[in-house]
């Protein structure tokens, strides 16, 4: 419950700078993109008639539909891998590392790489994954393989490997927070009520961290859906997801199609978030 009973007019003025910025930089451009996606005719001008033709032509192309499916599949794959790895990492950090200093040190080691930009981290994977890259050299040096494995770079496998490294923390972070907020007495109470550790996890710990899991899944989902840089650099322009399609249309000066792809991408992301919020009410987080 909020303790602020009365909001003065001055309080609303405080929101004006941020509100103006959001309006000018996010809301208006988004509406413009939606508007452009409905432009008919041949001329790129504000006087174009509004039609559904662009969407009709987009959906008539099976390759584009397949691409939407692949984008969702890629997001689902990453949600599964990052969700599992992230939960394990979070559980280890919160429940298994007893020493507070060690926990801080490990947590820092875990998040420091994320201080650099996503693009740089994606590109940094290239010398690792290449046929002459670090991973292949290591594999050959240990004798596990005789010839370099080519599927790492310029393949969806490589893209997935890079994305797992990029987005696992997004899945782990909210779980760390939720796990840390469970009072130890709850597990102990369950144990004295004859629940063995696996049951304690299944019935007490996991349900209580579920909001963190869902938030992590939303973050991974949104990032994978919007990720064009990793796909472009690691995939070597041989692969494309919905985000890359926007860029391709844009670079080909097909601005109306770029707008259509962008609107669909936004629509997919919005649908995913709405679905997640139906599972967990984020607003109730921390209210416990």
């Amino acid at each position, binding site marked *: 419950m909020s303790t602020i009973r009365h909001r003065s007019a001055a309080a609303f003025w405080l929101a004006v700078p941020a509100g103006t910025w959001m309006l000018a930089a996010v809301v208006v451009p988004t509406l413009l993109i939606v508007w452009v996606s409905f432009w008919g005719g041949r001329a790129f001008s504000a006087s174009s008639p509004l039609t559904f033709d662009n969407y009709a032509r987009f959906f008539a192309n099976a390759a584009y539909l397949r691409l939407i499916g692949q984008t969702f599949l890629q997001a689902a794959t990453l949600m599964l891998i990052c969700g599992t790895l992230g939960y394990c990492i979070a559980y280890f950090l919160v429940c298994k590392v007893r020493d507070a200093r060690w926990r801080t040190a490990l947590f820092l080691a875990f998040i420091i790489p994320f201080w650099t930009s996503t693009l740089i981290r994606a590109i940094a994977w290239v010398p690792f994954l290449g046929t002459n890259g670090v991973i292949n050299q290591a594999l050959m040096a240990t004798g596990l393989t005789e010839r370099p494995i080519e599927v790492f770079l310029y393949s969806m496998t490589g893209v997935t490997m890079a994305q797992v490294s990029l987005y696992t923390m997004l899945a782990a972070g909210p779980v760390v927070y939720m796990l840390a907020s469970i009072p130890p*007495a709850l597990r102990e109470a369950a*144990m*004295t*009520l*004859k*629940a*063995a550790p696996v049951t304690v996890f299944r019935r007490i710990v996991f349900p209580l961290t579920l909001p963190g899991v869902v938030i992590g899944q939303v973050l991974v989902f949104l990032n994978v859906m919007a990720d064009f840089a990793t796909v472009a650099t690691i995939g070597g322009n041989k692969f494309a997801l919905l985000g890359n399609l926007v860029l391709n249309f844009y670079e080909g000066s097909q601005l109306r199609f770029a707008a259509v792809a962008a609107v669909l991408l936004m629509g997919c992301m919005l649908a995913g978030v709405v679905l997640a919020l139906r599972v967990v009410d984020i607003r109730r987080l921390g209210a*416990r």
Partner: protein
Amino acid sequence: MPEGPMIAQLDLELRGVRKRYGSFLAVDGVSLKVEKGQFVCLLGPSGCGKTTTLRCVAGLEEPDEGDILIGGRQVTGDPPWKRDIAMMFQDFALFPHMSVAKQVGFGLEMLKKPRAEIGKRVAEVLAAFEIAHLAERRPAQLSGGQKQRVALARAMITEPRILLLDEPIGALDYALREAVMLELKALQQRTGISFIWVTHDQNEAFSLGDHVVVMNHARIEQQGPPEDLLSRPRTAFVAGFIQGNNVLRGKAGAAEAGVLPVETADGRFHVPIIGAAPAPGSEVSFSVRAERIEEGENDLPNRIAARCTTVEYFGAFRRHVLSSGSGVTLKWDQFGALPPRLRAGTETTLGWRTEDSVLHA
């Protein structure tokens, strides 16, 4: 005495339990026997090891040394879920995501009872604890007293041999505590389940416990029925910790006819000897209960001059806090219905019979 049949009578036995956290000794050689259906209170200041002892019994802590037997069976090393106990936690530790009914049925679910039986038992227990109307609520929607009942119902439904209670009413409003204490005592007597109740509140311990264990610095200072602890505190710590005792310290003189003269800064006092007499010249302490003291002119053998500093009126009695010539704080309790005799600032003399003083070990 043959040990076999004795043990069968015991719900719990601790033999020399020792628990260390790094260099800190939390429990130092605690031995304790709890008879069937006994109400035992572990009493002591915070950090004295009473909660750690309780957690060792629950299996939540592993003792470094010593044995724990529940119902005569060795359980040292067994995890909590394999012990015939239930526990009530200080802040109740209710599961925030479960309804009251689900919560109370949890223990039976873990025991793999059939669903129909769980439903029936939960309904019975909720009715018995007068919380049936709360069945569908979540813990966040309950008051402190309601949470306490839910936690108790959740622990009692499995009918454990021993119920462990860690400051179970400490989180309740003061006004509610007395009623809850009476209810819990009645419940314990009705069910015959042994209660082990950890508290730092001596009123709780003495009014509830059949057997009170006073702990300090990881060790048991004294254990026994409340009357014993109140009338015969064995150490200066116990005497000082239990309200209403006057503790005096001095040098032992030469014992004569079972009475030890003790030389203090406030004069010489006579204390009956229990067991061997302390060596003359050694430091000793003894105590006298505040209600055993008489005020004013009299011919009692032990007398001390003091000045009244505070008078507290409790209804049943009036407590006078006084300061002796050497600065020792003294207490004198007077029956509350009598007219007041002292005010702050009054100079007087206190006295007591020799047999009313207790020599400490």
